[in-house]
């Protein structure tokens, strides 16, 4: 049981060692010549005019909500797809019943203009 997971864990360890080692070497080996102008956040040569900790378009929140709905839907599709032929027509119609409201929801979003950028 756990033996299956060991491959993932070992790859994870290798990945951490590799990425962490490169970062560590970079931080240790690079030169250090710092002054105020160099450390200023880039803003096309200006001092920062507005703070980046500001409000942003509500569109992005909307996409996040849509994502939650459809990603949960996609999660239901995975096990269903992997067992599809065993479930037969019964499973097929069950999934149709499950999908229709979501497609109607998508159409509603579309009509309401939630997908316009």
């Amino acid at each position: 049981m756990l033996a299956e997971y060991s491959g993932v864990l070992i790859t994870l360890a290798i990945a951490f060692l590799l990425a962490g080692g490169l970062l560590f070497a970079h931080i240790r080996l690079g030169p250090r010549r710092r002054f105020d102008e160099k450390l200023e956040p880039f803003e096309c040569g200006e001092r920062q005019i507005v703070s980046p900790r500001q409000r942003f378009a509500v569109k992005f929140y909307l996409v996040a909500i849509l994502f939650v709905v459809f990603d949960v839907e996609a999660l239901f599709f995975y096990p269903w797809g992997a067992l599809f032929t065993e479930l037969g027509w019964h499973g097929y119609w069950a999934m149709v019943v499950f999908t229709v409201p979501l497609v109607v929801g998508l159409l509603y979003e579309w009509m309401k203009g939630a997908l316009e950028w």
Partner: protein
Amino acid sequence: MPWDVVAKSLFIVVVGVGVFAPVVTWVERKQSAVMQDRIGANRADLFGIRILGLLHPAADVIKLIFKEDVVPHGANRALHLTAPLIAAVAAIVSFAVIPYGGEYTVGGTTFSLVAADVDWGLLFIFAVGALAAYGTVIAGWASNNNWSLLGSLRATAQMISYEVTMGLSVVGVFMVFQTLRLPEMVHAQDATFRLLGFLEVFGWVDPLPAWSDWIRLPRWGVFLQPLAFVMFLAAIMAENKRPPFDVPEGDSEIVAGYHTEYSGMRFGLFFMAEFIEVVVIAGLMVTLFLGGWSVPWLSSERIVAGITPLFGGGFANLFCMLVHVTTWLVKVSALIWLQMALRWTLPRFRYDQVMDLCWKILLPLSIANIFVTGTILLLIEGTR
């Protein structure tokens, strides 16, 4: 310590990160040069030896390590450091579940060439791909820079949108192969099917003439699910934020997007993650749609059965393994070439076009694909 698993993990990481990823950075420069009628990278040399500019990736790594480590004023230092680490680790870990060879028996021991042979192979790749989004979000927010914030917002919206279509577009593939385990999926593709067989299955032409038995295609995902192949390629390339979907770092609009404030190896890890992901995408596409390690029209049983009487079973299995790993490498290289060709052919999409493609074209199409596939599968099942 399970040393065989360590060896398998090391092999795939060395091949993916140590060999393929640097070569991909070279291919990116050289292929673009060929496509644009330039010479391309050829300057880095070691004792006067240049080998077509192949030393450039090594020179890049050395340069990036010895750059100054700059963290801008007002940035969150801890998060600024974590973001590239998350991006790179998430990209490398995906290699764990990609099979690069089948099952072989040498000297009484049976082994399979995949670091982690798990039931949830594909789900793992999706999960790790979702983690990669955190890298970009954190990078954009931690930098204390307006361009970074804009870039990371674009990246988030794009990545989570395409995650949905990426997931839905491959459901058809699960339905055809009836598994989520990647090695099993490849094994199912190590066979052929009659191109005209459906005529007989549905009883339209019964029996089929004998010559139709010779018209066979490999049982690959790309032939069984052609629409899924195209949609999945588009979705996963958008997920990787490479051109033509590179709006999150669109240089002409928002400087460099979420990694504007990154330099040295901190930037290098984002850069590496992107190229490693190109290799992961190629490996995943090969596994799902192009038969993984399998040789077209020549199943592994036939290779082993053909060699065994001459040199014995152990050698036959070893030879078969060598052929399969080579086939896998060739297929992965071909898909890397395809991604590079797309990258240097298409101009960058506008942001609204990127989102429209996802929500208005790929999402409805992938849901339709699932139900069309289901209907056909059940009709075939019904004739049995």
